[in-house]
């Protein structure tokens, strides 16, 4: 697989997510999506990613129209979000107990086609001042399970 390099500029704990994988997945509401996992250790896209990790979801099945556009992250809740907005989210799972948080920021996709590496740039953060920014090249993996909607 892989990948370059997410470099985090955090005032707190520096973390580099140097591995990346892309899979066909789901949004939080269960619409089909592109999912990208940025991890510190290798992950093949099956089961649970090693923590901590960044998880990105981009709704849809054809992501070509989104290439090159700055995609602003929306919150976990769609309440109050313009229905025309492309659903793009990123969450951080810190690996601590019960710790996941949806982030603010921007994703820019350079290329995204099934069966090919997905490339792009991200700039994410929290209001607490933590920030993660970098580029990624995510190997495409097939998922074990079936479609969206548990």
């Amino acid at each position, binding site marked *: 697989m892989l990948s370059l390099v997410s470099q985090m500029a955090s005032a707190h704990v520096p973390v580099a997510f140097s591995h990346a994988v892309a899979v066909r997945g789901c949004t939080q509401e269960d*619409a089909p999506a592109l999912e990208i996992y940025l991890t510190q250790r290798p992950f093949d896209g099956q089961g*649970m990613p090693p923590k901590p990790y960044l998880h990105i979801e981009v709704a849809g099945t054809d992501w070509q129209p989104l290439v090159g556009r700055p995609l602003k992250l929306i919150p976990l809740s769609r309440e109050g979000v313009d229905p025309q907005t492309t659903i793009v989210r990123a969450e951080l799972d810190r690996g601590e107990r*019960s710790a996941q948080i949806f982030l603010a920021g921007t994703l820019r996709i350079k290329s995204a086609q099934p069966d090919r590496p997905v490339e792009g740039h991200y700039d994410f953060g929290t209001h607490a001042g933590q920030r993660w920014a970098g580029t990624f090249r995510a190997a495409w993996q097939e*998922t074990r399970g079936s479609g969206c909607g*548990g």
Partner: protein
Amino acid sequence: MRTRFLLLLAAAMFVLSAARAASAAPTCYINYGGAENAKPNRLYLYFPASNDATYPEFGFSGLTTSPAHKFDPTELTSYTGSAADLRNRITDVVVDDYCEFDVHVEQTTSAPPATFARRNTVAIGTDTDPTASGTFGLAQNVDTGDLIPVDFARVWAGTYQTLYGGSGGALNGANSTLDRWARSIGGTAAHEGGHNFGESHGDGLILGPGEDVLTHHIMASGTHFSGEDRAGYRRHFSDHEYSILASNVGLAIQTVWNWDFVNPNAQTGVKLRISILSPLPSLIVSWFYNGNRSPWINPAVAGPSGTQVFKGTTYNKYTLTWSAGQPWINGSPGQVPGGTQFHVGAGFSSVDFNAPDPIIITDVALLDGSDNPLPLHPRFASYDAGSVDQADGAFNVHFFNVAAQNLIVQNVVVQDLPRVLSLNQMVVGGRMVDPRGRPFRPFSEGVRRLFTQPTYLKRGAVLNVPVARLNQRRYIDEVVDERACNSQDRLKGADTAKCTPGRNVALFPSTTTYITAQVVDPQAKHWDPQRKRYVIGPLASTLFYQIAGRHLPGDPGRKGRGNPGGVQKKAAPTPTTKR
């Protein structure tokens, strides 16, 4: 009142048994009686009789949710049963998943009414998702904290036919059974409903020590589940999912208590009557112990029969009577020989779901065949559902001695649990399993031993049992969503005044709290069956007490949803110190 209750109970049991006869898998094991319909949250399973163009459109990425396609299982070409059977069995699955929660699950073939303020509608059609992407369902929102009172979701049952109905599929041929279809579609309906109640896919990824595998649970993203995972197993909420849901919608079981008593008389007791006080205008026993340590089942409530002031508060008086015999280990059905230990237990629900109401025991009496009390009474202490001592921030359950004797309380163990413990396992040596037999563990750091030395509880005195502290860390307290933190640029210049993070907070002190305690009369006259005479000496009873958690003032999502914090609702009784 009692006759009416028994008739209602009999009718409910008949309906329940009839339903079970048509269903290989059990549905909710708790009979909430009149409280079921009063649950504050509705989860409608909407199986449209025909395409419903009025159903809300909330789809995106090519998915459209309106019209809600009809539920017509002839479109599920590998399914061979009837539509009614499939509707009913799907409903069974979802009712079972939400059994312990303050959620009334109801199936309908017409558009649900807008009557109820908090309602969550899952429309289940037999069509395939419009993008042909293999999507089984879509929720309107992941409603962290369940702040949105009215939500909708959609299930495309036809996707199951498309993906798994073909040759060799998980729903084809011999695999195409009613139960497997119901588990598949019902699991998706429970999942989408869960999103609207505030559960995220991330909640489905958190497993406790020793917990069963993720694919047995409900809320992980669909890509984690194979066709066999969906069809072959009745999935359930994980400990973490359960705790989030209990916090967002509430638990319907409020207090559950069991007792190990000893018949101190030489005579055989044939009934047990417990006198209790409750603030409620009616009392619902929704659950009772039916294991083989008890000579009886089916306790009956009578009352209210007047009022009584206790510690400055006026309560309604009830009696709870066990008389229906069952085979048990220490005697004949319905009979407790002299000097013999026996066990009883009951769970209570009410229509006030904000905080557990106290069920205060004032007397325990064994009766003879003529309904006359035997002269000696099993020993007990009374207790409430807990309140905060504002002076020191301790959350205390109060034990009261209303008996004629001084008592000793000892060996108190408090356990913070992530899910409801089976009432039948609230016994000495009981297993830590939920009502369906699934093992679980208390939260780590959630077991405390108190009063390991005998502590006297004199006549009329109160003992504070500190089960938690207001400032202790919640078992789940996570900001998951920086919602509304500046819609223009959530990284720069956020308007923090408008920043209301989506936050999950577990109930306080935990989803349920389980307390066991020994109550001893050190100088009791009681029958010694070995010596065959009365003796004076220690006579012990053991309490097994489970209380639902509650919200504290300031917890997210409580505004406009009734009493925001049960801990404030009840004043601490006085005096609050030992004497």
